[in-house]
């Protein structure tokens, strides 16, 4: 049974393996046995790693160290942002880097600073378009031991990543009048709604809320809502609700425990996911994962490259580490994911080793070592 699952996984790809695993087993022991069978067949999983710029290389080192200590069977294929524009991709990312992600189907990305200038696409835009990354998933939960004004946050924001207000279609009608197009399609909305409900089901979440402004933007957000409703009918065990975005903002800052899984179009998703990151402690602690077609998952740290502390061993690797954990869960390596996750939580909760942005004095290497010790 487990051998068959291994073959099936390699043939069909990790997306269907998710379905396979959820159909086969609901207990974690069965899935870990599948995973163990996968890795005990001594073929480690290859994953692409983009260390990025600024503090990127340091925190990528941290991730590699923690993963090796935890015995995670991953072989990293490192790719760097080039110094010249690759004509095949129209950006500083080379075709080889993109092919690598397409091949491995899983990757981890550090912060990248887009060089200023013309004649090339932004790096994030390149990745998004070329890999067709349609959903951005960001879990936000209060870290025990790191006190912010909010203690009971436990929600996931799922944001449509390809269209909406960020289509980039603007033009000047006449001097002093500019139009910007917001595009909503049935296909993209269905896709992200499907992923949201599937995620809610596989992670044991009970409620999905669709965030919209359909009282004003009736056709566009109305279409988004219609698609969400269609998908909701297929998952009767999950409660579905619709919340207008201004209500949502207010409820989030007053009582974030009211929300569970949030699904929304591009612009609202951008703002709400950053708002939620602010509730739990900022972008330095927030993991995120971009999901693409064909089961591609690119986990990334959403903070900036912080050039002012680059190379000084002061950076906080938590965001990249937690993104790595998300990646492991996507690969169904739940046991190791749990191990590393607990180690990170315990290290931060203990309070002895914290980097400067959390109010402590440790260096990156000390923090990493503390996590390894907790494993």
């Amino acid at each position: 049974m487990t051998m068959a699952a291994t073959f099936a996984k390699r043939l069909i790809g990790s997306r269907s393996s998710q379905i396979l695993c959820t159909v086969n087993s609901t207990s974690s022991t069965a899935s870990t046995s599948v995973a163990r069978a996968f890795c005990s067949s001594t073929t480690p999983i290859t994953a692409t790693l983009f260390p990025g710029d600024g503090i990127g290389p340091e925190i990528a080192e941290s991730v590699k160290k923690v993963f090796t200590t935890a015995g995670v069977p991953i072989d990293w294929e490192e790719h760097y942002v080039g110094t010249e524009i690759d004509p095949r991709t129209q950006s500083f990312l080379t075709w080889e880097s993109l092919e690598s992600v397409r091949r491995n189907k899983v990757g981890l990305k550090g912060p990248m600073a887009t060089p200023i200038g013309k004649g090339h696409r932004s790096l994030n835009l390149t990745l998004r378009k070329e890999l067709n990354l349609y959903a951005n998933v960001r879990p936000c939960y209060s870290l025990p031991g790191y006190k912010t004004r909010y203690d009971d946050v436990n929600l996931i924001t799922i944001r449509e990543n390809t269209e909406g207000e960020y289509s980039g279609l603007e033009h000047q009608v006449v001097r002093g009048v500019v139009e910007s197009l917001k595009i909503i399609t049935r296909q993209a909305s269905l896709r992200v709604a499907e992923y949201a409900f599937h995620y809610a089901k596989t992670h044991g979440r009970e409620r999905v809320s669709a965030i919209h402004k359909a009282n004003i933007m009736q056709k566009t957000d109305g279409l988004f809502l219609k698609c969400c409703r269609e998908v909701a009918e297929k998952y009767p065990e999950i409660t579905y609700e619709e919340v207008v975005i201004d209500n949502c903002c207010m409820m989030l800052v007053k009582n974030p425990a009211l929300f569970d899984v949030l699904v929304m179009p591009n612009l609202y998703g951008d703002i709400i996911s950053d708002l939620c990151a602010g509730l739990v402690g900022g972008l330095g602690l927030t993991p995120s994962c971009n999901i693409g077609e064909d089961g591609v998952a690119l986990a990334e740290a959403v903070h900036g490259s912080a050039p002012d502390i680059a190379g000084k061993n002061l950076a906080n690797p938590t965001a990249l580490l937690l993104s790595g954990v998300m990646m492991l869960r996507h690969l169904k390596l739940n046991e190791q994911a749990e191990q590393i996750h607990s180690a990170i939580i315990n290290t931060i909760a203990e309070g002895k080793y914290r980097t400067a942005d959390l109010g402590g004095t440790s260096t990156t290497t000390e923090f990493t070592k503390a996590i390894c010790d907790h494993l």
Partner: protein
Amino acid sequence: MSRRSLTLLKNLARNSNASSSCLLQTRSVTYMPRPGDGSPRAVTLIPGDGIGPLVTDAVEQVMEAMHAPIYFEKYDVHGEMSRVPAEVMESIRKNKVCLKGGLKTPVGGGVSSLNVQLRKELDLFASLVNCFNLPGLPTRHENVDIVVIRENTEGEYAGLEHEVVPGVVESLKVITKFCSERIAKYAFEYAYLNNRKKVTAVHKANIMKLADGLFLESCREVAKKYPGITYNEIIVDNCCMQLVAKPEQFDVMVTPNLYGNLVANTAAGIAGGTGVMPGGNVGADHAVFEQGASAGNVGKDKIVRENKANPVALLLSSAMMLRHLQFPSFADRLETAVKRVISDGKCRTKDLGGQSTTQEVVDAVIANLE
């Protein structure tokens, strides 16, 4: 003379007993009205839907108790109507000032929002929400005193949508230099007239380079004319994050239409909730006062049935209205009474953590009026 000193002594006595000495009634220094300014002014009143009638009734009661020199011309407007009735528009144009409750817009129903229609027809291009911590009301954030000035007529709310082919819908966001300039001018003028030190423009110009870029350009031009006021810009997602982390850094914020909606509701939420924040819409000729931030201005059926709507927001907005009509002393009395009720903590509606009904809050406010 002796009557005034008696009132002052009574104030001092009461306030030394209560611990609300910071709410001692201060009088505006020698406000000299013109003869005839005290004749009653007409104000259009639109109760609206949901909790609207409850809270506007609260305002009517308090105005009567104060003997304020205004009288209301009440009109019934509901959110399902396709247009605001002509007689209502005429009344507002005649009176120039209106007080309204929320109008419920059916979601995705093909009926365009009457709130937006009203603002466009009267060209109320600036929407203002003042979000501040009320003394005595515990919140997670301290030192919040933010005014959000939001462009009210164009942007994403232009209402221009169409279906390109089945399954693909487009919506146009329109930004014009004319509207961006006038909202920027209003924001800086407001800051100047109210002794505010900083104006922050909220945008997403890294993605929407032309549209929000035009908005920013207009703001920068106006900023040059006010060298005494600090001007800075912040991207909207970072702005929301900073609002929940460090709200004390913001003073006056000027934003296009949609971001203004989000920022105003977030700021209202952190300072105590939309049930207490005053605000209104103003244009060159008219002003419409309503609950500041838009979330919950129609409220849920349960709140309506149990009569537990929070009238504080509309009461404070009506105080703004009294100042707009140049009755500062009545405005001060009303504000002081409301703030005293909140700080006492005995009469609070559900959204502030209490159990009182609307009527109980109104009675408390009237009792606290001098």
